């Protein structure tokens, strides 16, 4: 796809017979946040998807309501790679403040489609320029100034579609879907698309080599963001109590869940089979989750780093008093406020041990939107089975960006509500001890408030307690409960989602990663193979505590690269705590933590350096 060998100063305006670059490039739409470009970007993304070409979209946005630069990148990849790339070959420049910088960052031979009056030709001569008078076209199309902002965005969609040879019919379909029942809005927008297309057809001569051609790689696939998938997972887990405090980038988890709850969980009498509470802060949100979990509801919250910090004390209570609850942590860059709209995986260690005192939490690590759904609902089963808070760690890249996926499968097992004694059980048993390990699985039986038996009640407390839930300061009783909790955690290795062996050949080199690093890593392994002739194995981790297969994977390789998106090698550290000393020394880290989603090239380069290639 390299086009750097073009003598572009000369070819501009001339007919060229260059090798076409088909379905393998990125488009960067540079705009201003609050300008309403979201739906235009989405239509462009879905149009490429509609052409059957694998595609992904990323919104790089500032922590701001309106007026600051925003970039939306769309990657079309015939090979199905969906990670970020460092360069985008096609620029749509709409933001006067960043236009110069944006055009200067284009690779040689790139394409700049831009608002005519930005006059970008002055900055360089080795890219293809397509000026479009967006403002003029919009003014004639749309007499109503209020709507111009939105319509203007659709004009560039039309121009881009023409230049890349995306079928107008596909764009039309995408638009129809977007504005489902709003016929007038559709007509206005489609009119703008056509005006952009017409202008391009009349005034612009296609010279650049970038094309979208029909493929058949997206049939039956869906496009969704990870947060919507997590919210959907919670709803299909039968969540009944949701308590939350809005925080970027997790907000849309609860918004998505709420929309679905309103859709599917209202009785014919108009009553809700759920409660969603916007709490006063994250302390209250997790408190409500645990109160509800204690009383038997399936409860959840969604938050991000600063919220996780605030949930620390309650997380320890949930662990020690053994109360189920699900916490979605959509990670962003920290520490402190950090970069709220940038991605990160740097909450792993703090979440795994969240609380003072000896505490270990179950952490699920979805690596794509389908797993956001699947691990999203599995988290509720695990929380009730293991009677403990379960954390689902996603991140801004996975959570807020659009991803292609196979459609989600309906859960194949009924809900697992865990070990709960009924009044009838108590009649039979004559009583129970809340924290006694009667089954040898280190999990006690619990009762729910309201269970109608004089021996049903017990005293839940975060203070020292014995196996009958009585207050204690006795050394042996304290240790007995703490050791059982450790055994319960150890047993959880077999209950949590196991790792996915992506590649397991005969290589001496292995890779371990989790979450959104997967997208870049799959591409990087192909690069390493293609460019350096090295075949490496790869296992993707999906939960903490670590399944035994992860130990086996490390044992069967000489060197294991742990790829993660944080500074302090948190996943590698957690693995080192878990592995025998002679295995821990095999781990090497590849780290990426500048707030941008991980790209394949970063992994490949770092690997090559470390391997001395």
């Amino acid at each position, binding site marked *: 796809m390299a086009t750097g060998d073009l003598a572009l100063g000369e070819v501009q305006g001339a007919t060229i017979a260059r090798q076409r670059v088909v379905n393998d490039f990125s488009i960067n739409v540079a705009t201003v946040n609050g300008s309403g470009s979201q739906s235009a970007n989405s239509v462009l993304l879905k149009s490429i998807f509609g052409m059957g070409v694998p595609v992904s979209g990323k919104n790089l946005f500032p922590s701001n309501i309106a007026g600051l630069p925003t970039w939306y990148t769309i990657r079309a990849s015939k090979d199905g790679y969906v990670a970020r790339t460092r360069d985008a070959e096609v620029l749509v420049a709409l933001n006067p403040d960043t236009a110069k910088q944006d055009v200067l960052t284009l690779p040689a031979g790139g394409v700049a489609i831009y608002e005519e009056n930005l006059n970008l030709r002055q900055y360089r001569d080795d890219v293809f320029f397509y000026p479009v008078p967006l403002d003029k076209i919009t003014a004639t199309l749309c007499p109503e100034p209020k709507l111009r902002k939105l319509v203007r965005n659709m004009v560039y969609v039309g121009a881009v579609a023409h230049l890349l040879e995306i079928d107008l019919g596909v764009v039309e379909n995408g638009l129809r879907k977007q504005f489902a029942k709003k016929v007038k809005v559709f007509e206005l927008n489609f009119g703008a698309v056509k005006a952009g297309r017409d202008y391009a057809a009349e005034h612009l001569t296609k010279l650049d080599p970038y094309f979208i051609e029909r493929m058949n790689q997206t049939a039956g696939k*869906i*496009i*969704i963001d990870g947060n919507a998938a997590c919210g*959907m997972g919670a*709803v*299909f887990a*039968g*969540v*009944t*109590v949701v*308590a939350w405090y809005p925080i970027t980038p997790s907000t849309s988890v609860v918004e998505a869940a709420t929309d*679905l709850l309103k859709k*599917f*969980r209202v*009785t014919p009498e*108009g*009553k*809700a*089979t759920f*409660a*969603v*509470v916007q*709490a*006063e*802060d994250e*302390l*209250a949100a997790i*408190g*409500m989750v*645990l*109160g*509800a*979990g*204690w*009383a*038997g*509801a399936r*409860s959840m919250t969604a938050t991000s780093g600063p919220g996780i910090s605030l949930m620390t004390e*309650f997380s320890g209570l949930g662990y020690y008093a053994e109360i189920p609850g699900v916490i979605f942590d959509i990670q962003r860059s920290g520490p402190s406020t950090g970069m709220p709209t940038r991605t990160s995986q740097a909450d792993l260690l703090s979440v795994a041990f969240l609380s003072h005192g000896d505490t270990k939490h179950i952490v699920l690590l979805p690596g794509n939107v389908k797993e956001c759904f699947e691990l999203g609902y599995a988290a509720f089963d695990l929380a009730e089975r293991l009677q403990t808070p379960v954390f689902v760690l996603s991140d801004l890249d996975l959570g807020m960006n659009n991803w292609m996926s196979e*459609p*989600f499968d*309906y*859960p194949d097992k*009924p*809900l697992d509500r865990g070990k709960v004694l009924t009044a009838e059980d108590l009649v039979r048993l004559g009583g129970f001890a809340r924290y006694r390990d009667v089954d040898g699985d280190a999990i006690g039986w619990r009762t*729910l*408030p*309201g269970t*109608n*038996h*004089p021996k*049903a*009640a*017990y*005293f*839940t*407390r*975060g*203070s020292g307690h014995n196996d009958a839930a009585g*207050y204690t300061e006795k050394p042996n009783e304290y240790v007995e409960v703490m050791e059982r909790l450790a055994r319960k955690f150890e047993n959880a290795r077999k209950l949590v989602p196991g790792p996915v062996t992506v590649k397991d050949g005969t290589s001496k080199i292995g890779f371990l990663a989790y979450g959104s690093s997967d997208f870049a890593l799959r591409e990087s392994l192909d690069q390493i193979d293609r460019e350096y002739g090295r075949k490496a194995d790869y296992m993707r981790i999906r939960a903490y505590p670590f399944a035994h297969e992860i130990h086996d994977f490390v044992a069967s390789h000489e060197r294991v690269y742990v790829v993660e998106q944080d500074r302090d090698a948190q996943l590698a550290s957690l693995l080192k705590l878990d592995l025998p000393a002679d295995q821990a020394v095999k781990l090497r880290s590849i780290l990426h933590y500048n707030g941008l989603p991980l790209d394949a090239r970063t992994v490949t380069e770092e690997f090559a350096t470390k391997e001395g290639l």
Partner: protein
Amino acid sequence: MATATPTPKVNHIGLPVLEYRGGKTTLCAGCGHNAISERIIEAMWEMGVEPERVMKMSGIGCSSKSPAYFMNRSFAFNSVHGRMPSVSTGAILANRTMTMLGVSGDGDTASIGMGQFVHLLRRNLPMIYIIEDNGVYGLTKGQFSATADLGSKLKTGVINDLPAIDTCALAIQLGATFVGRSFSGDKKQLLSMLKAAIAHKGTVMLDVISPCVTFNDHEGSTKSYKFMQDNDEPINEIDFVASFDEIEVDYNSGEVYEVEMHDGSNLRLRKLHEDYDPTNKANAVRTLMEAHEKEEILTGVFYIDTQKPTFIDLLNVVDEPLATLPESLTRPSKSALDGLMASLQ
């Protein structure tokens, strides 16, 4: 030789008071909190509340230990410091059919817990929230709390130079629908107030002055037994007639403010203080502020509103507990998922 065991007195659901007892208290002898536990036991027993239908909530502190000392057959949650309101919110959302009673302290409520406390009040969460108020931190040995009065003195001679937070005035302003203050030493008033509280639907906020015999019962304290005996100024006399009682009380209607409770019982507030109207928010707050200036400790039911919807009403949740809804009601169908998937293609 046959000995007849005397039949213990039972309440209207057939339980003796013994079934409402808790564990042996570990608080100091003479602690006001123990007297409050006793009144809770009596009130629950007299009202015939099934112990299994009660959730006992608390935070951290001497006060928050006390749920261990009453109603062993009830479900208890001793949570973290200052966070009883959020845990209670979650619990009652999970099972709205329960009666919820929370015990907190002045530190647990008015300092570390203020953030959650005010939001509980705003929501009018259906629960009885009792502050066992002694103006001092007991477990950490005698520091002032935020309800200590300006100018009151610690045992060590330290004078409090910050104004007290009046939790009752706050509760009235922010949306609690049953607000009162009592004194652990006033058995009759406290018992009547608790029985009416059990009958109320919405947030009941009771500030109960409960002297700390170890750290705050000396000369110069405004939360001591002596100070309360000298300065307790009841604003009304409380008669509570439960729905199952068939007692007719004669009274002069001009002297009594009568409130019909949700469960059909009657709360009769005999006016002792001018022409006090317990449904007037602004007047209630003004009366409290004026009493403060006169260094009177007003007690009684300050405010009541039986009409305001609770948080549960506002959320419009089903009548049965969310906690135990069957899967058929909580997990949407396969066709629901298929429809969603189709819309995303």
